[in-house]
């Protein structure tokens, strides 16, 4: 009998899990803060080029995104494989840009509207033709602040 009693005395006390929710909450808050909800479903493949002279886009709310790339595999039948422009969730043409920008502008406060930046997320394989058309349209619309989206790369080529 005494054999059993001895063993029981040595059992390790259960680890208190009372602080577990707090730890999880800290993690949760971290992810909540850094999260950017994916705002549009891309129908095109976009692999942005690399560059070194990058600037961060500070205010996310002041940025409108224009995507240019080749349509994804499942849209090829319908839209072909020529590079296309995508605004929000749909394929668009260059002529849709002014309306798109106007809608984006309405989302932000009036005094901040001149600070709006158009971020061009363009696939690196795309030819400059369509990019040029978009740029020309942006100039005509008066949206002159443009950011060519790119990934950081180390200094040497």
């Amino acid at each position, binding site marked *: 009998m005494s054999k059993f009693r001895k063993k029981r005395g040595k059992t390790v006390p259960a680890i208190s899990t009372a602080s577990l929710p707090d730890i999880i909450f800290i993690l949760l808050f971290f992810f909540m803060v850094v999260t950017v909800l994916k705002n549009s479903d891309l129908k095109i493949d976009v692999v942005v*080029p690399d560059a070194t002279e*990058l600037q*961060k886009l500070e205010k996310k709310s002041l*940025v409108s995104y224009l995507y240019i790339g080749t349509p994804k595999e499942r849209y090829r039948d319908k839209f072909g494989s020529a590079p296309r422009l995508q605004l929000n969730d749909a394929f668009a043409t260059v002529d849709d840009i002014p309306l798109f920008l106007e809608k984006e502008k309405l989302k932000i406060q009036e005094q901040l509207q001149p600070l709006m930046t158009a*971020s061009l997320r363009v696939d690196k*394989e795309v030819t400059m033709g369509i990019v040029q058309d978009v740029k020309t349209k942006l100039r005509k619309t008066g949206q002159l602040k443009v950011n060519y989206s790119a990934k950081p790369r180390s200094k040497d080529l």
Partner: protein
Amino acid sequence: MPKERPEINASSMADIAFLLLIFFLVTTTIDVDKGITVKLPPWSDEPPETQKLKTRNVYSVLVNANDELLVRGEPMMVRDLKENAKVFIINPQRLENMSESPKNAIISLKNDRGTSYGSYLAVYNELKAAYNEIWDEKAQELHGSTYEDLPFDKKKELRGNIPLVISEAEPTDFGD
């Protein structure tokens, strides 16, 4: 005397928090949005006035439909572009065929419609890098700090003395 209330069981709190945590984990895209910021020139319907520029002040860069680089009529590799542009802008030896002063230097960038965006941006990046390095060197020389650390007005003054002028001509229609 108040009724004795049973304590609320908080053991499911962790589960709820986990659920939320997993949701945010899945939806998170920690992608910092970075890129090269440019200011496009405003559009005008009239063709721009043809300014008489001295050839020595113009650094013409052409990226053709085969993604080949031509700088002032000479083929060049992209990796040599930055150093070459820096020499052109500063012109340390006061050569006759390079810019009179950094203030007068103008970079003219031209591409075809068939140029790939990747190589266009690589070239643009190098040109911008050239200016960033010049600004950095000047800032070290004048104020003893990097360009990034200068106060706003000093930055502006520096940029005024060595302005970044990249003029982009309408592309030619090759290879679209």
